């Protein structure tokens, strides 16, 4: 087997272009993965589920669109991500309806990751961390209160920094719809967060 692998490597060395393609995809995914996770987490509200959603989106992008020009990757990736989030929310809605007939709602306390709850050691002062934590908590609560499409438009534009055209491509709707969703999202957030936020 080793001999076959060695012969294969000698007769078919990986082409430079293919390696560049892999490196470019690696860089792209590394650049977007954390924000993608944050966006997914805001929508599905479960860390494991959010990680699954992001991983599915990565795999789908690589397998289906890896050979497309790299300029197209960002809107394609976020299109896949928003579709996965929508699928997940639909499944969750069905599951909740079904489970409601059989068992009381679980509180989910035992599913929390103990490592994720360890104290953060990144050098923030307690006051700064407290203020940021309060602002973040209020923002997360407000975002949860938004309709799904408004939240998607807001997160794609504000967090990922997509322009209207790319957001429309990612959400599978028109640029006009994106503007409307985004505008309504910001109005609602201002009302929910109050005048003194952040």
């Amino acid at each position: 087997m080793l001999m076959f692998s060695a012969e294969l490597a000698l007769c078919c060395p990986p082409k430079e272009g293919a390696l560049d393609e892999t490196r470019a995809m690696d860089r792209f995914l590394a650049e977007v993965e954390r924000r993608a996770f944050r966006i997914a987490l805001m929508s599905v509200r479960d860390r494991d589920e959010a990680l699954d959603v992001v991983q599915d989106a990565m795999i789908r992008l690589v397998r289906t669109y890896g050979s497309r020009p790299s300029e197209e990757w960002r809107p394609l990736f976020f299109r896949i991500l928003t579709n996965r989030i929508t699928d997940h929310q639909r499944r969750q809605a069905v599951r909740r309806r079904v489970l409601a007939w059989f068992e009381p709602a679980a509180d989910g306390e035992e599913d929390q990751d103990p490592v994720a709850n360890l104290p953060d050691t990144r050098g923030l002062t307690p006051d700064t961390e407290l203020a940021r934590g309060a602002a973040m908590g209020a923002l997360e609560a407000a975002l949860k209160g938004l309709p799904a499409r408004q939240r998607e438009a807001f997160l794609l534009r504000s967090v990922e920094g997509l322009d209207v055209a790319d957001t429309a491509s990612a959400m599978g709707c028109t640029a006009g719809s994106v503007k409307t969703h985004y505008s309504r999202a910001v109005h609602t957030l201002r009302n929910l967060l109050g005048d003194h936020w952040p």
Partner: protein
Amino acid sequence: MSEQPDLTPDEQRLAAAAGDLLRRSADELDATTRSRLNRARRLALAGLRPAGVRRGWLMPAFSSAAVALLIVSVWVGRGVDPVPAPEQTAANPLVAQDLDILLGDENLEMMEGLEFYAWLDPALSAAELQAELEAAG
């Protein structure tokens, strides 16, 4: 956000501040999540093989050849048994008995002394042969 002229400056500030806060929280994800994202990325990239190998027909051909070679070597290897196995017939269920002994978990001591029994068997045969020779002769 100049593409959204309907937003007031205050709303634009709010959107910018919210975006900053969320981006910062994404940059400061805990180590466990970063590690899991890294693993997810590696897993996804494993599906993106270098074109020289992915595109050609050689990979499946070599895989098939390797599998065929493995099957042939296993098949041929079955016939090249260095220790001649005793014939097993309905009248001589020796192999089945040995198998029972070897597989039985209550005979561990006997299994440990297999070398002794292997030595004892030809030794007894020689002694019996000597006795027969003396009786005959």
